[in-house]
């Protein structure tokens, strides 16, 4: 590889941001001043290239400090990591949180997604824009779901600098959001995570048991509340025993695909190739989903413990926690938890004196829904564009860095803790035969008490909505998020299980339950969903790259039409939707038409 770097130089600020991450450059090959030794000494090659995975953290470092990524900064980062500038440019332009053009240091992301739109996000945006005016030094950006739907409408302010400052305003008013953008440090504190859990403190809870009960910063508090008994039990059982327990418990992945977790772990554990990796997918970006955020903010050590158990069971010594970039508080809490655990011998070379080594690295995503797809997530961590890979080969065989990898989302992993403490039979007794254990649901929209709810599998949709208290006359429920489907108000007896929703011709997906009353204009909602998929398509495959655009165009054409006037476009939507589902590379394109189809078929959206 013969790399060519441009002539543009980084500013002192940009250089400092990169050096803070990578350390000072060692030679002129890396961008330091030339010394005599450089004439006889070349650096680069494999050692430098092996740091390619620092590209994404490097881009974050620059973006956090300056607010955008200039040519000189990008070239300098490339020189330090021996990454071709064209590739790095391709990576930087892939993520929504980065900009390669100058922009104001402060960004105010105002969510205009489903729950926030229903809560008046449009008016909020207009109010904020008129208050801030043009020369405020704040750029207001309409954003997809910020994962704060229980407090809709939501806004997130990010002010570049050293250190970068963030402030969340939710439920946002014009005043609060403008204050957050102007002075993030003096903006009011966010309410505790437990506010998002209406059942908080209920002793019958399993997964949410500690949220609101323990101090999320306190490791001792976590241990006093039963923390780390699961890991001790894991060491007693041995790796094979842990996998047996997880398999017997009947745990399946909570991300939407519902794959048996024990089988995945077993398949990874038995791969002869090494090292093995554990990856926790905390890139929750499905509109309407916020449970992983609440878990990480309210009970961060549980995730550290669960990842450690997963690593032990599958023979991994390194884990990556890929955390959504728009979750500043969750990032802070998880960083703190990992540091504390390391300091106390619960991560590192000799965990609990058992001679087992494991450590966790936290990686921030940068605004790309598609990175929730497991192989896209690997590419993202490795410093490539977050494009899904084609499968096979599957991650258990060739995952992160081409090595056997077990990938689970936050909710799935957190289930492992009670499985080990209560034992597989007791866990499997919760829920139904086909869907065991407790399940988290993110309820938002037209309800009195939005939030994360924990119910055993098998409760009905109606029971869940009763807990949350429907507001107004229910028109439709979106089940499973943008990739899920709508159901009618007369279908509330659908049991919330994988088999029950499948039988009813819908899906549980990631556990989103969004209620819409009859004031919500359905065609606009569908348009928003279509826009989301068009924005988030990675662009790799034709059915998704162009199909999502054609879907949005057709929905635009029929936004105010019904019946015969819409029939032709509805037929077109069906044809394109079918090809997207059948021929796209990944789940994003394959599900991009689900919600629209269900609205047409179940709700009679354009009749």
């Amino acid at each position, binding site marked *: *590889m*013969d*790399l*060519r770097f*441009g002539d543009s130089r980084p500013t002192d600020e940009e250089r400092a941001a990169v050096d803070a991450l990578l350390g000072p450059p060692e030679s002129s090959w890396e961008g330091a001043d030339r010394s005599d030794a450089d004439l006889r000494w070349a650096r680069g090659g494999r050692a430098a290239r092996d740091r390619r995975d620092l590209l994404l953290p490097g881009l974050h470092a620059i973006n956090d400090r300056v607010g955008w990524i200039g*040519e000189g900064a*990008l*070239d300098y980062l490339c020189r330090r990591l021996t990454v*071709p*500038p*064209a*590739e*790095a*440019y*391709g990576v930087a*332009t*892939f993520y929504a949180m980065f900009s*390669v053009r100058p922009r104001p240091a402060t960004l105010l992301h105002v969510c205009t997604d489903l729950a926030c739109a229903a809560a008046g996000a449009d008016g909020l945006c207009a109010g904020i824009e008129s208050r801030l005016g043009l020369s405020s030094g704040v750029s207001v950006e309409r954003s997809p779901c910020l994962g704060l739907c229980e407090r809709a409408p939501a806004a997130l302010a990010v002010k570049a600098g050293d250190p970068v400052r963030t402030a969340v305003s939710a439920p946002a008013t014009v005043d609060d959001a403008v204050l957050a953008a102007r002075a993030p440090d003096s903006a009011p504190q966010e309410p505790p995570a437990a506010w998002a859990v209406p059942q908080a403190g209920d002793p019958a809870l399993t997964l949410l048991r500690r949220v609101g009960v323990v101090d999320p910063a306190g490791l001792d508090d976590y241990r006093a509340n039963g923390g780390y008994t699961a890991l001790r039990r894991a060491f007693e059982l041995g790796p094979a025993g842990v996998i047996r327990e997880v398999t017997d418990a009947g745990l399946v992945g909570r991300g939407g695909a519902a794959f048996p977790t024990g089988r995945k772990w077993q398949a990874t554990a038995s791969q002869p190739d090494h090292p093995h990796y554990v990856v926790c997918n905390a890139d929750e970006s499905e509109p309407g989903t916020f449970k992983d955020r609440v878990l990480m903010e309210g009970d961060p050590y549980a995730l550290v413990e669960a990842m450690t158990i997963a690593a032990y069971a599958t023979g991994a010594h390194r884990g990556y926690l890929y955390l959504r970039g728009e979750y500043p508080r969750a990032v802070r809490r998880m960083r703190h938890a990992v540091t504390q655990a390391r300091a106390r011998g619960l991560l590192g070379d000799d965990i609990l004196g058992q001679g087992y080594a494991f450590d966790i690295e936290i990686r921030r995503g940068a605004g*790309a829904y598609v990175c929730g797809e497991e192989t896209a997530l690997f590419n993202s961590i490795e410093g490539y*564009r977050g494009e899904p890979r*084609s499968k*096979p080969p599957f991650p258990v065989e060739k995952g992160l860095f081409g090595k056997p990898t077990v990938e689970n989302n936050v909710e799935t992993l957190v289930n492992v803790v009670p499985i080990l403490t209560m034992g597989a039979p007791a866990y499997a007794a919760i829920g139904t035969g086909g869907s065991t254990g407790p399940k988290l649901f993110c309820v938002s929209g037209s309800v009195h008490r939005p939030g994360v709810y924990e119910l055993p599998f098998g409760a009905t949709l109606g029971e869940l909505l009763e807990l949350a208290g429907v507001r107004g006359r229910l028109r439709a429920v979106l089940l499973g998020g943008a990739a899920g489907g709508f159901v009618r108000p007369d279908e509330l007896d659908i049991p919330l299980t994988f088999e029950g929703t499948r039988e009813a011709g819908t899906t549980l997906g990631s556990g989103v339950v969004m209620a819409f009353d009859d004031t919500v204009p359905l065609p606009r909602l569908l348009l928003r969903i279509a826009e989301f998929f*068009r*924005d*988030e*398509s*990675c*662009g*790799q*495959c*034709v*059915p998704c*790259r*162009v*199909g*999502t*655009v*054609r879907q949005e*165009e*057709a929905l635009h*054409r029929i936004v105010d039409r019904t019946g015969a006037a819409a029939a032709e476009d509805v037929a*077109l939507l069906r*044809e*394109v939707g*079918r*090809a997207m*589902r*059948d*021929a*796209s*590379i990944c789940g994003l394109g*394959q599900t991009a038409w689900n919600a629209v189809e269900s609205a047409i078929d179940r709700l009679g959206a354009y009749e």
Partner: protein
Amino acid sequence: MTVTPLGIPRRLLEFTIDGEAARVPEGSTILDACRAAGKEIPTLCEGDTLAPKNACRVCVVEVEGARTLVPACSRRAEPGMEVRTGTERARHSRKIVLELLASSVDLSTTPRVAGWLKEYEAKPDRFGPDAARLEEEPRIDNELYVRDYGKCVLCYKCVDACGDQWQNTFAISVVGRGFDARIAVEHDGPLTESACVYCGNCIEVCPTGALSFKSEFDMRAAGTWDESAQSETTTVCAYCGVGCNLTLHVQDNEIVKVTSPHDNPVTHGNLCIKGRFGYQHVQNRG
């Protein structure tokens, strides 16, 4: 004649294509097997010298038991697999994919595509007159080759050829995402300010004519490009000792472009700037 190096003999595996038994060497793709069985399957992003990115999805086939269709160009055949190539479902997806492509980019210089559009009864116009298109001005920033991304189907072949699969120059990349994704050099500048070494290997693999010789581009613009009047002569490059094979495309006694045979076991169709573009001295007749 080219000499194909013999590898280690491979085991044969058995599976069925459209109900008929097929035997192919281990490691073959479904597409290899289909071609061996004489089945026509359209392909765009697949290329004989590169590992396909399977991004275009025109080669999809149905595999028994698979939830979605699978790309024939990159899925390996497995023992016992039941592949169906011409089902209504597969044909539907191919047709839509062709429509989506033809409605968004200019396929006028893409070989074979007109035939497929007809065969699959694709009607790219039905997305309406306002359907988003990639209408971009051709980028002419050097004397050797032109990038006309209004014709690009984003097959990733040029990126792979310039990057780790052949050239190792990494001058170009996919940038942006979704419908806005494009091929570009760093900072999206002109080619002359990039790492490009003008080997032209990206032009060699481009399936649509989005990348073309400046000579071809100019002649097309002038209406003088006429493939039927061209002759091709394969010879040996005289610049250096490697001795790459050159195929000279000659029209009206002028070399109009230079390609290289892909089945050459040494170069696989790759050249350097001299072999690819350094032919003017031949026709300097003063």
